[in-house]
């Protein structure tokens, strides 16, 4: 069964690079460009194996989405990698507190991201 990864990222170029990387691993990639769309897709469609969640999203930021995911029994255990361009210790802490499984700072190393996804997907 193919590993499915969901990416919420508003920067088209970054989304494109991530999609290329993960797709090259043979994984199925779905994505959303803003917070509202991301939450809607996660709630209404089949759950992915791993979620890559950018914090600075329009309409609804990554932390809000994560809190909602953790609040719902369906998504409470969903593995989530938080992606941030701010790189502040404060953000890392917040992410951990509300239940992020991993934390990746932009600009990331491609290998890192893939490792993290593999780990969380149990590959």
């Amino acid at each position, binding site marked *: 069964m193919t590993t499915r990864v969901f990416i919420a990222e508003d*920067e088209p170029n970054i989304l494109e*690079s991530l999609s290329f*990387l993960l797709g090259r691993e043979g994984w199925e990639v779905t994505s959303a460009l803003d917070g509202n769309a991301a939450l809607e897709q996660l709630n209404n469609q089949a759950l992915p194996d791993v979620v890559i969640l950018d914090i600075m999203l329009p309409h609804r930021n990554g932390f809000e989405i994560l809190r909602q995911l953790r609040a719902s029994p369906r998504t409470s255990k969903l593995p989530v990698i938080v992606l941030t*361009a701010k*790189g502040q210790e404060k953000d890392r802490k917040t992410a951990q507190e509300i239940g992020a499984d991993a934390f990746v700072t932009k*600009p990331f190393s*491609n290998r890192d991201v893939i490792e993290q996804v593999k780990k969380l997907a149990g590959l």
Partner: protein
Amino acid sequence: MLSANLIFTISLAYVALLFMVAFVGDRQARTGQSSWIQSPVVYTLSISVYCTSWTFYGAVGSAARSGLEFATIYLGPTLVFIGWWFLLRKLVRIGHVHRITSIADLISSRYGKSTSLAVLVTLIAVIGTTPYIALQLKAVTTSIQVIVSSDPGNLANPPSDQPASEIAFWIAAGMALFTIIFGTRTIDANERHHGVVAAIALEALVKLLALIAVGLFVIFALADGPADIFSREAAKVLQTEDMFDARWVALTFLSGVAIICLPRQFQVTVVENTGEDQLRMASWLFPLYLMLMSLFVLPIAIGGLSVLPEGADPDMFVLTVPMSVGQDLLVLLAFLGGFSSATSMVIVASIALSTMISNHIVMPVMLRTPWTSIERSGDVRRLLLVSRRISIGVILLLGYVYFRLSGKSDALAAIGLIAFAGVAQFLPPLLGGIYWKRATATGAKIGLATGFILWGYTLFLPSFEGDLLLSASTIEHGPLGIGLLRPQALFGLTGLDPLVHALFWSLSANVVLFVLCSLLVEPKPLERLQGTLFVDVFRTPAGDEHRFIRRSASAEDLFILAQRILGAAEAQRLFREFAAGQGSDSDFPQPTDAFIAHLERRLAGSIGAASARAMVSQIASGETISLDELMKIADETAQLMEYSQEVEKKSIQLEATARELRRANQRLTLLDAQKDDFLSQVSHEVRTPMTSIRSFSEILLETRDLTSPQAQRFLSIIHEESLRLTRLLDEILDMNLMDRGEASWNLHELDASVPLSRAVETCRGLARSAGAEIHFGEPASAIVMADPDRLQQVVINILTNAIKHNTTAEPEVHVEGRLVGGEYVIEISDNGPGIPSHLRPFIFEKFQRGAAQSSTGGIGLGLAISKEIMKRLGGTLALVEDDGPGTRFRIALNAKALRSVAQRQNQAVE
């Protein structure tokens, strides 16, 4: 008939008795066994020095001539002692607290320790007392002459003049000797003369006894009791018509004033006082004494008038009445009574005057000469004693000279009243000084001097007979014939008794000028201080002065000074005592302010306040006079008050500053948060393109099987993101420069259409690659003040946004340059998606990517910078709120003048 020899022998014996009493009194006072000397009875008896030979002999004379008028002389003092007891008590208290040595000292001390005022008072006292002393000499001389050279049958004839001056001279010399011996034995700190006071008290008893004896003799031996006496023909003298007229009031007033202001009365009442309780007894005992003294005046006068032949001198009735019936013993007693009256007055008066002269005239003169000369000459104390002794001699000599000059002057009483009116001039500064704080030295001086001059002109000078000082014609017609200036009818005031006239002019001028000048001239600090200390003497504890005046001096220097004035033993005792009081067993105390003030008061007791002040001041901190320091203290106090006001003001300011600081702090906190925010934003803005660049470059490096279009695409993304990064950094730098005011501005007048057209041309390439169309008509021309590059930057910035973020199928951008009113307006609008209304308020803030929800980003700082630029150019940049689709920005600048191209060309042709 008594022989001259007997009289002289008796007189000498009596003087010897006085010597003994004085000697014993002095010794007892020194050894501390002074109980009877300090008794209020002795004190009261000494006050009777008021009753001189003028009273003793003259009262009878006055009664024989003018009836009851003599009673005024007793009435005034009685009223003062009974009714104005509190005034005397205040004087005594002030005398004790301030170690007052004389009336001159009191007045000078009160008015800022003024030396000139002391000199003035001393001069008036000397001039006013001299006739009085002459009067005593005359009384004693006449009495001796009467006894010796006249037989009862020849009493009507005046005695020859020749031996009189001789007798008077020897009497004066004898009195001088006695006074010098007992009045200047020591220089006492309190200027008290216990021995003299004892002798005076004895004399008081003798004169009272003598008068009573003669009176009783007249009533019961010559007549058949009081009823008989008053029924005699001569008693008609009592029925004078002008009783209780102005003169009567004036005399009562004058004698009341005299009991306070006469230097000798001040001496015995205030200076010789050893305790205020003495005054309590004196307040009733002295009036009683006066009553007894006056009781027999009328009987003796009536007896004399009825027994003695017409033309007999009534001033000598006390002697001549017993003489007429050959009562030698009674004559002798009467003589001794008169002699006592005269000597006690002369002794006390000359002591008082010599103190004033040496303290207020000799000492200041010595002090004016350089200090070193006194230092070499040795003991100031000896100098003081010598100057006092010489003063006494000079005073008696003056009295003698006056006696010689006015020897033929008539009634004794007249001379006495002249003296009274003279010293009455002291009353305004004295009363004003102890009851009115505002009284000033200037007022006292001008009032005193004017009163004194008027007194001299209207009363004293005319008293000299013949053409000696004022010619008869001057008195009659005024100086140079000016009637208004007639001495006894000044300014046309006629019809008054000369005494009342003189008293009226001198005292009213004195009072008016004293009050007026006091009100007009600000008192000096020391005057103010002394005024308060004197007026509030019952409220102020003694010796408070040092609190106001700070001085410093070495104890050794002070000792040398004290030794000179007090004598070595006394000075040593004083210093040891004070050192012990300070808790030290050394010979010298710490020269504290308290000690210096204490020493100054002790010295003031010997040499007067003004001199003591001057001498101590020369040592204490080398200053000339402490007035300066007082001023300094006053200044310091003022400064202190100012300072405390300032402190108050400062604390208010401080509060305001604290508030401002709090506000500033809040703003800083906010700014700090904004800065953190900004850094975080910048970090995000940089990291975002960096992420793409890194990620794609890793892909390019690591992936072997990339297709060429794929590689091409990834490389173009890297390129695009690196451009975005560069632009971002440029913007940050630009923003930073502008924020710090360091951006360079090339402002000048230019045609706004030029940079506008240039910006549009620059963006045409971008528009072509984005497939957008720019609609740009011929812009209006107008002169604006601007930096062309910056204006161009703003237009490009907005135009770029309009092109980049326009996601419609057929992107269009409209640009126009128009003149609206006095403004050049550039509008840039597009047919894009527009900016969501909730983001509109924030689009000009840094890193607000209002329209950049979508892809390209990179407008983080652009709008903020453009807005800032327009602000600097004095123009505006705004988002036009309208309902239409797309976005419309408006740039506006003040246009200075508008000129179309055509106009410019026209101008060129001209």
